[in-house]
């Protein structure tokens, strides 16, 4: 029973992360939303690992952290570059390519 709570928490965090992506304007915050989704998944994986008594879930969580870090590096580079060019980090200002 207690483990179920972790799953609920993970789902909640995931949903909050997704909502952040959809609703926030600042690219950095949007990106933090994505990170939150990844970490929510980590929680999910670790919980399931515990439930199944299987370690691979934890290993995956490690990998996800590393991948997330790499993503941060790339993402920051792109966002900072955009910011330096346009003096704005709002995702709504980046709107030249459309229809």
């Amino acid at each position, binding site marked *: 029973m207690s483990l179920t709570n972790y799953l609920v928490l993970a789902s909640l965090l995931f949903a909050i992360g*997704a909502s952040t*992506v*959809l*609703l926030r*304007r600042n690219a950095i915050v*949007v990106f933090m939303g994505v990170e939150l989704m990844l970490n929510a998944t980590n929680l999910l994986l670790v919980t399931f690992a515990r439930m199944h008594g299987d370690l691979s879930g934890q290993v995956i969580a490690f990998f996800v952290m590393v991948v997330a870090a790499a993503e941060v590096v790339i993402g920051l580079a792109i966002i900072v570059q955009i910011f330096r060019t346009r003096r704005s980090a709002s*995702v*709504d200002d*980046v*709107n*030249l*390519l*459309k*229809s």
Partner: protein
Amino acid sequence: MTSSIATHLPAAVAFSTASVPAEGLLSLAWLLVALPLAGAATLLLVGRRADAWGHWLGVLASAASFLVGFAMFIALLGRPADDRIVNLHLFDWIPAGNLNVEAGLQIDPLSLTFVLLVTFVGTLIHIYSVAYMEHDVDRRRFFAYLNLFVAAMLVLVLADSYLLLFVGWEGVGLVSYLLIGFWFQSTANAVAAKKAFIANRIGDLGLLIALMLMFATYGAVDFTTVLGGVDGVSQGTLTAIGLMLLLAACGKSAQFPLQSWLGDAMAGPTPVSALIHAATMVTAGVYLIVRSGPIFDGAPDAQLVVVIVGAITLIFGAIIGCAKDDIKKALAASTMSQIGYMILAAGLGPIGYALAIFHLVTHGFFKAGLFLGAGSVMHGMGDQVNMRQFGALRTYMKATYITFAFGWLAILGVPPFSGFWSKDKIIEAAFVGEGWRPWVFGTVALLGAGLTAFYMSRVFFMTFFGAKRWNDGHKTRPGTALSKQPVQHPHESPRLMVWPMIVLAIGSAALGGLLSIGNVFQTWLEPVTGHVEEHEPVLAVWLIMTLTLALVAAGLWLAYVQYAKAPVPVVVPVGSVLTRAARKDLYQDDVNDALLVEPGKYLTRSLVYGDRQVVDGAVGGLGHIMVRLGEVVRRSQTGYVRSYAAMMTVGLVALVAVVLATRI
């Protein structure tokens, strides 16, 4: 796998589908396609350096192909009738899972008839073009396309599967597109080319869907399997396949309701009109239906639709032909109408298949002759096409006049010219049957003959008889409308143009009669179309023949009174409602335009140059709906990352919901 199915079939199917592998001379059939293809490739690759001799290479390639075809014909005659369906395997083409398509050629009386027609008439038109296109800087390219067309057309008729047929089908479409737009300097040509392309695509879609239905039903698309296996297939499926094939035929053969492009295609060079839009490509639809005979025999409903389409187009084309003042457009309308006859015949079932092909062959000769004649007139009259500005040309262009007269008598069906033998048979066959059908279709076919006589005589008289209605430079009174026209010096065309016309005129005169002696043509086709007992028409044969000839005479007389005896106004008279409607292709063109072409035409312009009003002006139509839909969907592409993410989220939720919904 295919052969095993064939051997399990009862021997007494109406259509013989058993084929034997090619050997000896017949195994060289690939040369038929390879020769013109090599010609085209050489002309295109060598480039400007071939300008001096390129056209003769084109003629040579086509003529060589004809000689090979003729040799095949002799070889096939040397075989017993049952062995005349020969299959030449070329290579494994598409092995994909259960579908294994081989590229192969089928040499049988039907395909060989086409081969001979295409290469013979094709060669004549090649020769004619040498002179006709003499002053065109791009003559070499023109010949390359002509050769390419011949190759594609031969692929179409020689294919042993619907898929390879489709390759040829698309090929001729593409090349005809290139040829109509050959003088692409003029916008009208480019638009006409596009119109033809769009109409053809709709037809092609039909063929594509038919292909899929065949594959779904038989697991194969080769003639042997598909046509040999109709017995085990439900009538509904056959009807669906048949209707799709008919759609394809309508697109290619300019039949109702996809006929509108043919008139505009006349914008291309006249030899192209003669070769592609009279003798060969436009008859591919007839070939498709005759080739698919077993499918239509198993689907009477589809067959009925075929007859109806043929009948409608036959009258439709004839009425339009009565009102056109452009000589080429009048001939185009007549082509439409004559192909209507063929489609009608093909829809009558086994009794009509051979007749359809017979008329196709004779029509190939006399219509090509008529077009070349028209080209010759244009050549002599400074590219004038308006018949109201012709008149009395018989004294200036003797050879053209006489050869044109032969074609004219042939299309009228005056005995003993070719058209009499083929068209009369179709009219007779249309009167065969029970219930309402023979009366309706027979009457339509009969009326068509009368109308044909009228509008073709109209063309003939307006061009060669009556008073001079062109500015000859000295006898024209100054100040009249006529004197503003450019001065014409009508003259006979060069010999290179006249000789092909003479050969075709001889064909128009004699071919029909020769091939009718002892039903030799029908017997020749029997291995493919099946043997049919004679049926009695609902009216006596002598009565039908008399009625036909009477109507033809009436039409001729009417035209003579109106256009040879009475003066023809140079300025177009207002005319009756029907005449005005017919001048506008019975408004069908406008309907099709609104549906298909205008939106596309204006869309291109508007998209390229941004005049939006034109698009909004072209309200209605299939193309327009598509564009509107596109505009609506395009709005979802807002450019905002967050709206994209929202779209993805909604998509995800929908996906999960749909997937989970299956378990509830």
